[in-house]
């Protein structure tokens, strides 16, 4: 990156820039909610608002990890099968062996850690392009899910799981538990990316990996850790998916193309696909926006076959809007 571009680069790290992207997303989401709400009052009912919020949590969790990876100029397509495998393993063990939620959590995180580390080691030490590595591990991990499930599926987990996925942390405050969990994880990730050496190293590698290496940053080690983190978040999202839906099938995650959705949401949130810039709050707002749009399509009686087209148009519009502003500022 040339010296001329430095000021805008510096501004990219400053909180003010990210706030504009976040405010835009909030404004668009609220505006859409009110517009559709005027057409159909049920849309702004407490029940539907809660549903839209809850519905975005799993995607948000996956997309937080994806944002870190993309900010480092990588990409992780294997998040979908990692989510599916974690949901399937925890779900089947809970269903057949009475695995408790307290034991399922470390188990899921371990699965994510191992699978994510495999991605990271392949990317960082073998110099294989991340899209190739995660494409390969995508079929490997979804194969593992298939073999492990052995044709069965999870449809009856204990009430503690469902309570975690749908209940409230405190009975007095009507905020669903998953939302609270998401906010805590968001805060942690945000702190790590903005205020730790590791986070700065992630952005530096995304901006220019050879410069980061020349500056003495442990590029290989940081890369491995980011992919491991992405795997853990995806696996945790898998556990959350299991708790929220109470079921898990072989196609959990991969069937919804959550890997593509998480990439889309990260970019909508203002993360640069070319690396060097990551906006975690934008990512979460982006997946909330996606959830609102998809629910709005249902309320507007759009035939289900067009949902995917709506998603595609939304990605184009959001990325295009981001480009326009970036161009104007530079």
């Amino acid at each position, binding site marked *: 990156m040339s010296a001329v571009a430095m000021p805008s680069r510096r501004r990219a790290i400053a909180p003010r820039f990210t706030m504009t992207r976040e405010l835009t997303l909030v404004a668009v989401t609220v505006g859409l909610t009110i517009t559709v709400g005027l057409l159909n009052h049920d849309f702004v009912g407490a029940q539907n608002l809660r549903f839209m919020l809850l519905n975005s949590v799993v995607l948000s969790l996956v997309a937080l990890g994806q944002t870190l990876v993309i900010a480092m100029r990588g990409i992780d397509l294997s998040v979908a099968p990692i989510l599916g495998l974690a949901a399937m393993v925890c779900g089947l063990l809970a269903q057949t062996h009475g695995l408790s939620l307290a034991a399922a959590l470390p188990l899921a995180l371990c699965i994510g850690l191992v699978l994510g580390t495999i991605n990271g080691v392949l990317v960082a030490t*073998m*110099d294989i*392009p991340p899209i190739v590595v995660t494409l390969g591990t995508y079929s490997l991990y979804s*194969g593992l899910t298939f073999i492990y499930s052995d044709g069965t599926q999870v449809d009856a987990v204990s009430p503690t799981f469902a309570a975690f996925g749908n209940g409230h942390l405190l009975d007095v405050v009507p905020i669903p538990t998953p939302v609270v969990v998401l906010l805590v994880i968001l805060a942690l990730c945000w702190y790590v990316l903005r205020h730790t050496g590791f986070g700065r190293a992630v952005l530096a590698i995304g901006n220019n990996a050879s410069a980061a290496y020349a500056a003495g940053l442990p590029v290989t080690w940081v890369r491995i850790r980011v992919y491991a983190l992405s795997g853990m978040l995806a696996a945790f999202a898998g556990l959350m998916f299991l708790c929220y839906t109470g079921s898990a099938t072989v196609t959990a995650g991969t069937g919804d193309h959550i890997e*593509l959705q998480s*990439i889309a949401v990260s970019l909508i949130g203002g993360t640069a696909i070319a690396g060097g810039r990551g906006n975690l709050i934008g990512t979460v707002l982006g997946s909330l926006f996606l959830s609102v749009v998809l629910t709005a399509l249902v309320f507007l009686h759009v035939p289900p076959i067009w949902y995917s087209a709506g998603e*595609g*148009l939304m990605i184009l519009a959001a*990325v295009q809007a981001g480009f326009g502003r970036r161009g104007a500022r530079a």
Partner: protein
Amino acid sequence: MSVSPTVGATPGDDLTMAKRRRRLFSLGGWELSLLVLLIIVTTSFGLGVPGFFDNLSGFLAMTSNFLPFGIVALGLSLVIFTGGIDLSVGATASLAAVVAAQLWATMGLNIWVASLLGLAMGGLLGGINAAVIVLLRIEPLIATLATSFIYTSAAVAVAGDSPPSGFPDAFNNMGSGAMAWGSFQFPYQLLIFIPLAVLFWLLVTRSAFGRKLVTVGYNSEAARYSGIRVPRVLAAAYVISGMMAALAGLVLSAYYSAARADMGDVLLLTTIAMVVLGGVSIFGGEGRMGGVIVAVLLLGLLRQGMLIAGFSDMVTSMLTGAILIGSIAIRNIFSTRVGGFGKRLLALIRRPAIAGPDATRHDAP
């Protein structure tokens, strides 16, 4: 398809151009290893798995199961040469095939006319991709991701509740039939693939367009300054990729004798694997068409062999993933150009040889 010897090149560029041309013409080390691997795989399956190679006709007939992937891979490699990617190939294949089938079923068009319109539809969809990438300046990965969502919806909408099926036999033959000379049978799919493979190989190695394609992928800024109309080259790559995807979709619908809207979904990941395994750099500007063609046969025959040997579909695709990663890893380990592990490994081997004379020289005085 003529070779223009100088594309506004200075003498210095001539040298590199000549070097690049030689590199593109020759069958490099990677292609050679793929070819050796292909021979090993074919002979070991042929000897070890009954039913893999009973007679030549049966062996050739097996290619009908994977050649649609190969057709897509040919077009997709042009896009990857430019440093882009086309994630919409699967959706394009489905949409084009469904549109052609509906034109035949509801409007009573001749099936071949409908197929031609389907091909044009594929070109149009590729053109939309190119327009989004070039005019809106959106990254190819995001652009084609978004358009693939849109094309998928459109394909489902066009297909309707009951996807068209029961095409004329002449059309179905394109997917599953074979030309017969006595007892020898030659599948029509191979008859489509071989000329296309030769055409694409010539296009990339011997035409000005091919050279521009690789130059754009190598460095699009430099390509622009040397007078290449980068948007035009990109547009051509995406249009061709769309048309190849459409052709694969048509072949698939002939193979199944039905045009389903989710038919193309399986194409994407395997074709990317084929192109990358063929030695084309995912970052563009590097690779050879010959490698892609060998990789298509290698992955396809490997998959067929494993299926015949009794492995499940899932294990087979797991192995495809492992091969994809493993082959690139091996390639990088033995490549001196790429830094990192391979370089370090080679440095370990080489250091004594370099240090040897140095040490004696320092020890001498």
